[in-house]
């Protein structure tokens, strides 16, 4: 009997089940790649030590430092925010040495935000299971890998057994028809999706993004979309691998070479959802109707098109609006901005920096606005510098920093001062996310650049016409 048609997720699930689920226990699922960083790993290493356990697969584990590291150096020395951050980074260094883990060290080639370097190094591959103690691990799903964030206890599980206990999630197809318009990017698309289905719309589901609007995206753009799957509460985001995926991966450090590459591509090509396979739920969105998006509230679902006002919901969002110092019916465009942040695992890859630079080139940062540009990795920094993007940002009056998570999570000293309004290319506008009392407006790199040069929340499109 021929096998029933399967979704991409079904295929990823089936090939990683070590022990099938029973009513008494979830399935044991094998993990192909474990990414480790300084913030969510120290307690897991302690657990291994206290039980006398070793790391099962050092060859399937890599580590980097990104969350609590500074983005400024002086005389080659990192300027840590405090002794505790320094100690946390030092603990990672010691733990990697003790357990034999390859560590991408600050300032060295390969280092960067964990979700930027995995794909760059070619470690992220279609068909893989990938985990990390970080919810934005969903980023790697852009390659057709099942990638998800886990807590520190599970970080320990993977270290010791290379496996996790999982119940099979449901599937949600997010079909994106049509093409994004000029000045509208992948970030706007995912913000429109999160607004449409809500911040819990993906709960208990893996989202597979399908349709012509997704097929047209570059890998950098697909990563932006999958990255924010967690902002809809989803357990993962997925995109079927295709020629765009293969050409991105070919020749990268850890991808298969020569005949092994041909075999890999053939196998990856069979991962796409079969004709006739069904999802638990399907939602569609027309990309051509998406506007540049900005958030007005304190979760990523509280988003509107740049021309819209804060929605009138009869006070239902009053706590968020009070925090943001916004009122129902207020137009978003024209609001003065204090800080602009261009960075994070959502939007700090080369495409993102090129887009921001295209707006800032030949213009200057508006008076009183502080602009921070933080490349996602050493490799992004190298490529951006080779193209002169660092000079464009510098000449405009922006600060060009060393790679890391920086102001997205503001635990390294790069914060937004209390009460100030930041337009940020990051992923979360939660209360206090970018610093206590900081007010965050999420937007694309294009919109962030428009805010930098106009000093307000602004529609980038007129600036594109001028240039």
């Amino acid at each position: 009997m021929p096998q029933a048609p399967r979704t991409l997720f079904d295929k990823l699930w089936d090939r990683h089940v070590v022990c099938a689920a029973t009513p008494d226990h979830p399935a044991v699922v094998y993990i192909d790649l474990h990414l480790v960083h300084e913030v969510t790993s120290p307690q897991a290493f302690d657990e291994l030590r206290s039980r006398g356990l070793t790391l099962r697969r050092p060859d399937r584990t890599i580590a980097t430092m990104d969350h609590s590291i500074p983005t400024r150096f002086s005389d080659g020395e990192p300027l840590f925010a405090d002794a505790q951050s320094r100690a946390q980074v030092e603990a990672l260094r010691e733990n990697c040495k003790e357990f034999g883990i390859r560590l991408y060290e600050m300032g060295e080639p390969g280092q960067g935000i964990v979700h930027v370097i995995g794909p760059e190094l070619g470690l992220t591959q279609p068909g893989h299971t990938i985990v990390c103690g970080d919810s934005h691990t969903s980023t790697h799903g852009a390659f057709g890998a099942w990638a998800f964030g886990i807590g520190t206890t599970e970080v320990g599980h993977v270290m010791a057994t290379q496996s996790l206990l999982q119940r099979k999630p449901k599937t949600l197809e997010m079909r994106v028809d049509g093409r994004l318009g000029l000045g509208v990017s992948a970030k706007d698309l995912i913000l429109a999706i999160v607004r449409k289905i809500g911040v819990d719309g993906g709960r208990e589901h893996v989202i597979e993004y399908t349709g012509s609007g997704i097929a047209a995206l570059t890998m950098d753009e697909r990563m932006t979309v999958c990255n924010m799957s967690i902002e809809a509460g989803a357990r993962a985001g997925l995109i079927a691998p295709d020629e765009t995926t293969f050409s991105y991966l070919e020749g990268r450090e850890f991808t298969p070479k020569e005949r092994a590459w041909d075999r890999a591509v053939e196998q990856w090509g069979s991962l796409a959802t079969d004709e006739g396979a069904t999802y638990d739920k399907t939602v569609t969105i027309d990309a051509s109707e998406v506007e540049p998006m900005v958030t007005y509230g304190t979760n990523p679902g509280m988003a509107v098109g740049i021309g819209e006002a804060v929605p009138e919901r009869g006070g239902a969002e009053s706590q968020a609006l009070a925090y943001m110092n916004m009122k129902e019916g207020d137009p978003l465009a024209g609001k003065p901005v204090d800080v602009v942040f261009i960075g994070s695992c959502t939007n700090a890859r080369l495409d993102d920096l090129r887009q921001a630079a295209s707006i800032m080139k030949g213009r200057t940062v508006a008076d009183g606005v502080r602009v921070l540009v933080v490349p996602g990795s050493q490799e992004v920094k190298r490529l951006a510098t080779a193209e002169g993007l660092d000079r464009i940002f510098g000449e405009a009056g922006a600060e060009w920093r060393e790679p890391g998570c920086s102001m997205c999570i503001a635990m390294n000293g790069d914060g937004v001062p209390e009460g100030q309004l930041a337009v940020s290319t990051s992923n979360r506008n939660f209360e206090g996310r970018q610093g206590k009392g900081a007010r965050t407006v999420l937007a694309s790199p294009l919109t962030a650049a428009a805010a930098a040069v106009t000093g307000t929340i602004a529609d980038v499109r007129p600036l594109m016409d001028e240039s």
Partner: protein
Amino acid sequence: MEPIRVLESKTVVIAADNVDTDQIIPARFLTTTTKLGLGEHLFADWRSNPDFVLNGPEAESARILVAGDNFGCGSSREHAPWALADFGFRAVVSTSIADIFKNNAVKNGLVPVEVDSGTHTRLLEAPGAEIVIDVEACELALADGSRVAFPLDGFARRCLLDGMDQLDFLLRQDEAIASYESSST
């Protein structure tokens, strides 16, 4: 992990929907390398308001948090359940609890209880109510004695009841894992 069979306590209510883990424990407290003492920073920014419920005497002995929809969304930081447990909570009751948080909660003896919106409304409207969470029966008893069933994965229930460690379970699958590794590479 200490086994939990039946939990009887007054409730504390934080009614806001979509409370993310950045609220539960702000990122500036994540540079720690241990799990200890995080209860002190639980809801740190909200606690700067003296009227916030966790600053009141009613929070001191409460073991059950009644929260709004989609509690624990956002970051995967296990520091969130560590902070709640360190503060003294042993259960969170909501209409829905975010997936990663729920998974992390069970591993730290924090019972995730998802109830229908009618029951939830009654709990939200009666802060400080004495309720009972029966993990064995997967039932919640309201102050008036009425009982409501809640879903709990069979394995999660076993872990909570026995204080079972999931890593021990995984370590026992070593043979199957090794056989998977040799067949797939």
